[in-house]
């Protein structure tokens, strides 16, 4: 069992098993969600507005509780979104990522082999720096008007 508290968003979660909650979620009561696995077994409980609904003083004393306290939003991009923002082709970004991965630096995150690559701010900076350091070998961007 895993208990986590996210103080930035006041969310308390209790994972009853490691199984992903792929069976969907239902409202058990106001602000309380039950999460199910694909065999309809309860695998998690999510409590919104936790400090209003639960005595957090006791919960915070629970051994092994994980407290997360960031309030900063996290920015991320898909390869397509980054290509649009930089006004370059998607394949150009993909080729850069492939070259970086071949050379070693870990870049982007994938939740599974068929999942889209997610690029966080650190990845975007690393890609930018790589492209500046390796101008050769990248496909030339189409000139405007050509």
């Amino acid at each position: 069992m895993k208990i986590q508290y996210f103080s930035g968003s006041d969310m308390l979660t209790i994972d009853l098993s490691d199984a992903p909650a792929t069976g969907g979620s239902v409202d058990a009561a106001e602000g309380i969600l039950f999460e199910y696995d694909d065999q309809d077994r309860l695998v998690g409980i999510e409590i919104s507005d936790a400090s209003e609904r639960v005595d957090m003083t006791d919960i915070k004393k629970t051994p092994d509780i994980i407290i997360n306290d960031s309030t900063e939003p996290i920015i991320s991009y898909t390869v397509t979104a980054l290509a649009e923002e930089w006004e370059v082709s998607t394949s150009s970004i993909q080729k850069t990522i492939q070259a970086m991965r071949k050379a070693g630096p870990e870049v982007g995150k994938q939740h599974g082999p068929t999942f889209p690559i997610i690029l966080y701010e650190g990845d975007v900076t690393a890609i930018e720096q790589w492209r500046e350091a390796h101008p050769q070998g990248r496909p030339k961007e189409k000139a405007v008007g050509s």
Partner: protein
Amino acid sequence: MNFKTTEYFETRVAHRHPEIMTYRCYIEKALTDAVHEEDDVKGRTRLYIYVPEEDKYLRVIVLADGETIHNAFFDSHFRRRMNK
């Protein structure tokens, strides 16, 4: 378009609901084309969007700024609630 998420989304939702990550495009679409909206706690909003590949409704919860994704999951009872 970049994607703004909370620590909660990145730390827990992405791992507990991994299937959601394949439907990132629907999460984005919910911001502009939700079929239904409801108030959530702390000024957050629940946005619902249909995902035909799963024949399910996705509930996307955004912060009060209207753009930061806080939570997303398939709401098993949405259809039933709407049919009441």
